[in-house]
């Protein structure tokens, strides 16, 4: 009787072994399935966020660059499109490029014949309507940029002038006063003895930054962090 019972136990042991192997296999399978299921869910969230950001960046890309403040020395800036509620930090970006009137900031008061080295001729059209009319002299101490074209080679100064004077050709300064800032010309500069030119760094830096604008760099949209 003891041996008979023992034979039944053998079958039982085999069954237990079989079922435990199956259980392990099935649990492994279940795990793989779960991971695929969560991958799909993550994909769904990513796709939804991505489409939202895509539309957001398309709506805002035309105006985003113009909203960057000008008072910095940077020449490129990256704009980020994001939603605060997106926990997966999915973001889209574009680059903005700075288009400036000045190739470089003037380093001294009198820059004789430096017109082509200092001024971006191709971006002139962007700023032409911002120039001060050269015949009107302001009384305040704010910074101004005066543009004298090729035909205007004489200019009369009265009092203190804060700003940069740019002449396309020769320039003769008459009158009485002090120019605080810088003078840039394409030709020769001559002044009356009553006119003096003093380099003022704050004015120059301010005007160089002011006469620039942010523009969207072509083909700079990206949705990854390099």
């Amino acid at each position, binding site marked *: 009787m003891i*041996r*008979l019972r023992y*034979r*039944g136990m053998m*079958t*039982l042991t085999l*069954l237990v072994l*079989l*079922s435990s192997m*199956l259980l392990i296999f*099935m649990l492994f*399978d*279940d795990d793989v*399935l779960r991971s*695929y*299921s969560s991958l*799909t869910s993550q*994909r*769904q969230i990513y*796709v*939804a966020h991505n*489409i939202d950001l*895509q*539309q957001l960046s*398309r709506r805002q890309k035309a105006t985003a660059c113009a909203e960057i403040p000008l008072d910095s020395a940077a020449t490129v800036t990256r704009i980020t499109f994001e939603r605060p509620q997106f926990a997966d930090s999915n973001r889209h970006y574009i680059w903005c490029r700075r288009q400036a009137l000045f190739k470089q900031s003037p380093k001294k008061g009198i820059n004789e014949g430096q017109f082509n080295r200092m001024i971006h001729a191709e971006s002139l059209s962007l700023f032409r309507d911002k120039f001060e009319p050269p015949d009107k002299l302001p009384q305040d101490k704010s910074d101004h940029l005066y543009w004298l074209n090729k035909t205007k080679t004489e200019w009369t100064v009265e009092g203190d002038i804060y700003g940069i004077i740019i002449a396309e050709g020769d320039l003769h300064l008459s009158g009485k006063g002090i120019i605080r800032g810088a003078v840039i010309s394409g030709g020769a500069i001559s002044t009356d003895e009553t006119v003096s030119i003093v380099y003022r760094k704050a004015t120059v830096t301010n005007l160089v930054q002011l006469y620039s604008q942010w523009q969207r760099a072509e083909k700079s949209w990206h949705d990854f962090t390099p």
Partner: protein
Amino acid sequence: MILPLNHYRGMSLLTLLISLTLFSGIFISVNQWTGYQRKTAVETYQRYQAIQIAENQKQRRFLGLPCETVVVQNRLRFSVQCTDEHVIVRYPAGELHL
């Protein structure tokens, strides 16, 4: 002679029945579990396809193309319904809102 015969008799009817019961129990549960897993796998795969289709529709609209109404992929029929905000994809195992 009786004892050795007894010794080689094999399992009794009762043991056989118990073993068969246990085995069929295991077999049925494993079979059901496998069926459930297969169903889950099919659902996951179809959902993934539906997400891709919905994304495609969104991109089509982004580019100014009209929405498709029916997409057939590996003999499965995905019906697409576009509203102003959302894309709804219905597939045999369920439906997806994006």
